[in-house]
């Protein structure tokens, strides 16, 4: 009798009315968790998930390293005469590209996570509704920081010498993370809107490839045909790269920085509410 399942402890559990009664006693309830504290708790959940499945950090470390090495050596000689020289131009851009590409995993992760029964429980808790999603993105922000750091380390090893020093680099990474946090809300929206993980991936690629490549990441837009320059100039990635590049080089560009902060605010204000609308309506199962 006592060995029907391997996972069951050797002693059979018998519910005890006393022990259960003790946990059921109606004690004074704690005050509700605030919005910020609930979001942080959900962020902790994201970190726990990374702890249990550390392989998922592969895409935020290996992928950026490969991107950096690949483009430095692929284009370095041809475009700037030497890889080292090209790296001074490329590194901030490749960092933006990699981190912005990683934001799509927010949508993919949400799409699979939301189907699980535990989200029904989250949605019946008396907490600030967006907390579950904000917390999830907090977890992702950690991944963005990790990816950016990885690239910076690889860059420094290869010979990247930022004129802005430590402060410039930190400011650049900070601005990039702020933008990526706001940008992630596009993917939470798609993650809720689209049916499968695959379609979220598909849409993300469709958006991200043109955005990152048709920009000032790899080459000076001055070399491009006029119509393309037009697109590159309105591409938000171009502005993020310009701002981050400037910060890291030590010549702070207020205009571009403000542009990026304003764009982040707009993304958040548009896609945040859209996401929440879908999240509240989601009648899974």
């Amino acid at each position, binding site marked *: *009798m006592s060995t*029907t*399942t*391997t*996972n*069951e*402890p050797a002693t*059979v*559990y*018998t*519910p*005890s*009315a006393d*022990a*259960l*009664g*003790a*946990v*059921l*006693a*109606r004690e004074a*309830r*704690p*005050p*509700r*968790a605030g919005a910020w*504290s*609930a979001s942080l*708790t*959900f962020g*902790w*959940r994201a970190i*726990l*998930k990374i702890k*249990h*499945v550390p392989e998922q950090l592969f895409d935020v470390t290996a992928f950026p390293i490969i991107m950096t090495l690949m483009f430095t050596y692929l284009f370095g000689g041809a475009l700037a005469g030497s890889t080292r020289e090209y790296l001074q131009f490329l590194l901030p851009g490749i960092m933006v590209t990699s981190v912005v590409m990683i934001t799509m995993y927010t949508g993919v992760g949400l799409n699979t996570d939301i189907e*699980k*029964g*535990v989200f*029904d*429980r*989250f*949605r*019946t*808790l*008396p*907490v600030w509704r967006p*907390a579950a999603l904000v917390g999830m993105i907090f977890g992702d922000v950690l991944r963005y920081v990790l990816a950016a750091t990885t690239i910076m380390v690889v860059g420094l090893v290869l010979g990247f010498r930022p004129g802005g020093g430590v402060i410039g680099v930190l400011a650049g990474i900070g601005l990039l993370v702020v933008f990526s946090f706001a940008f992630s809300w596009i993917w939470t929206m798609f993650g809720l809107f689209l049916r499968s993980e695959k379609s979220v991936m598909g849409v993300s690629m469709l958006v991200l490839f043109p955005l990152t490549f048709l920009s000032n990441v790899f080459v000076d837009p001055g070399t491009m045909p006029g119509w393309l320059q037009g697109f590159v100039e309105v591409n938000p990635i171009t502005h993020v790269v310009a701002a981050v590049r400037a910060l890291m080089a030590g010549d702070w560009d207020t205009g571009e920085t403000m542009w990026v902060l304003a764009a982040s605010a707009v993304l958040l204000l548009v896609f945040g509410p859209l996401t929440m609308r879908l999240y509240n*309506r989601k*009648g899974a*199962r």
Partner: protein
Amino acid sequence: MSAPAIETSGLVKTFGDNRAVDGVDLTVPHGTVYGLLGPNGAGKTTLVRVLATLLRPDGGQARVFGRDVVREADAVRSRVSLTGQYASVDEDLTGTENLVLLARLLGHGKRAARDRAAQLLEAFGLTDAAGRQVKKYSGGMRRRIDIAASILNTPDLLFLDEPTTGLDPRSRNQVWDIIRVVVAHGTTVLLTTQYLDEADRLAGRIAVIDHGKVIAEGTPGSLKASIGSGTVHVRLRDAAQRPEAERLLTTVLGTSVQAGTDPVALTARAGSADSERGAAEHASRALAALADAGILVDDFSLGQPSLDEVFLALTDRKPEAVA
């Protein structure tokens, strides 16, 4: 505490042109287990999700402790708790992590959350598994952590959606015991199930639902009385004696006897709209009659009507999805 725990009128929820909940009127009193009985696809989960503020109804009204589930969803959420049909904790996290996470979300401080988690794990016999990921738990342990997670703050109303489906008899008994204690401490429980037997043991009242409609409602006793009191199952030693046994049972029980594909088995309703006592008397007389006629019986039992039979009696048709 004047308003009933749950009160719905004309509640409707549709998915496209599928009316999953189709005009449900329910009143669930305080402090009891209310059973929602129905086959696959009857609309049980949909109804529970509407009441738990997860789905917006398309018509009618639903109130939980007097609060509207749409307009006052937040007030409802602070008094209810849901144990969904499918895993309702995070399978990637450990037992402790799950409970601490939820306790923190409910406003407990770090320390208090840890203490509360440990206390619950102990009461649910999960202390040994506390540090293991829930996906590595057995079915019974999972259900227990699901329920433990639902009473982190003792709710006034607990939704249990098919809490014992797929459990072995021992685990099922454990869940039943837990439910009894929960109700004894003043929590109202809305329990969905596919088993009449389970509703009968736990529930003070039962609503039978099918195709989104309540087709019968009442106490287990009145429900059973209205659909007949039970079924006699007989297994004979010798298949050759079956025709004679069939004739005898028909006379004694006064109902039609089914001879199925198994050559030694016979099944018959023990009286039509009789009381349970009447069924027992009928069954004893039937057994005596078989013995007098020298028919050897390997197995003789008086069972409760199965959900199958309940449906047959209530709708005059077979429910598609019930075995």
